């Protein structure tokens, strides 16, 4: 193991994280909702869902950032939004299936468990975060070790 200090940007990461935390707090203060993105998205698909409009507006805000960001900051973000040739479309499709199914079975993702759950010191969320960090790391390790870094 070695550290990649060229790309190490803890301040920028923490500042971005603080904005995420601020948004999650706003959503709770103003709308009483937990900012778990997988849950908010799944509520659009769930047959017995309530509050489809509410969910849609929040998610549109997310999409808008990508739309405007890719236009305005094309040089910085445009190309890098994609895994730049290291993942095939087939791999991305399977990845999406796993993310969709897994986050419903485990009731949360990086935001729901990682930010909101850990913020209220939920043991359940801690178990979830440790689990998905481990399997995500293991997946990247296996792809790097046995598939030359792209799949």
């Amino acid at each position: 193991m070695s550290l990649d200090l060229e790309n190490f940007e803890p301040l920028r990461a923490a500042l971005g994280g603080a904005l995420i935390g601020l948004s999650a707090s706003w959503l709770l203060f103003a709308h009483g909702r937990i900012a778990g993105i997988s849950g908010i998205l799944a509520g659009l698909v769930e047959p017995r869902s309530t509050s489809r409009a509410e969910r849609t507006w929040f998610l549109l805000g997310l999409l808008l950032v990508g739309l405007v960001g890719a236009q305005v900051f094309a040089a910085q973000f445009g190309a890098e939004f994609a895994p730049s040739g290291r993942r095939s479309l087939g791999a991305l499709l399977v990845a999406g299936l796993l993310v969709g199914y897994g986050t419903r079975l485990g009731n949360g993702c990086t935001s729901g468990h990682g930010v909101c759950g850990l913020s209220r010191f939920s043991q359940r969320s801690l178990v979830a975060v440790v689990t998905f960090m481990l399997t995500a790391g293991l997946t990247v390790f296996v792809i790097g070790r046995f598939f030359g870094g792209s799949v």
Partner: protein
Amino acid sequence: MKNVLSLLLCGALFGVGLVLSGMTLPSKIFGFLDVTGRWDPSLAFVMLGAIAVHAPLAWLARRRERPLLGPSFELVRFTRIDGRLVLGSALFGVGWGLGGYCPGPALVALGSLGVEPLVLVLGMLVGVAAFYLRQARRRERTGPLASLVTGDA
């Protein structure tokens, strides 16, 4: 109208945070998850920054009777640590390491109109739909009481 504007801005703020922090860059995600290679620990600071802000504010918010613009606070429906939680989280982790996107960044990237995030988000929606289909089938088979036992909401 006030609601719509608030939700849009809130989602946009979340998105800006994701972009600024690097969560929308699969290359950054792979660098963070590649602990045995050349490890870039930056993304650990995203979670730390988010929790440092959200933990005290969420505690304050939950002391209110009701939200500013909504009728009530969403309840945390699940409390048990069980196989379902671990298996689901494990599958999600494999998907995250495989694709390089968790759900929020996938949606931001989708906004940039790339093919890669589009394919991933489509897969994600199918995965979610498959879960609800399986859940509905199971409920049909076992009757409504079983969902109380298994904790399915």
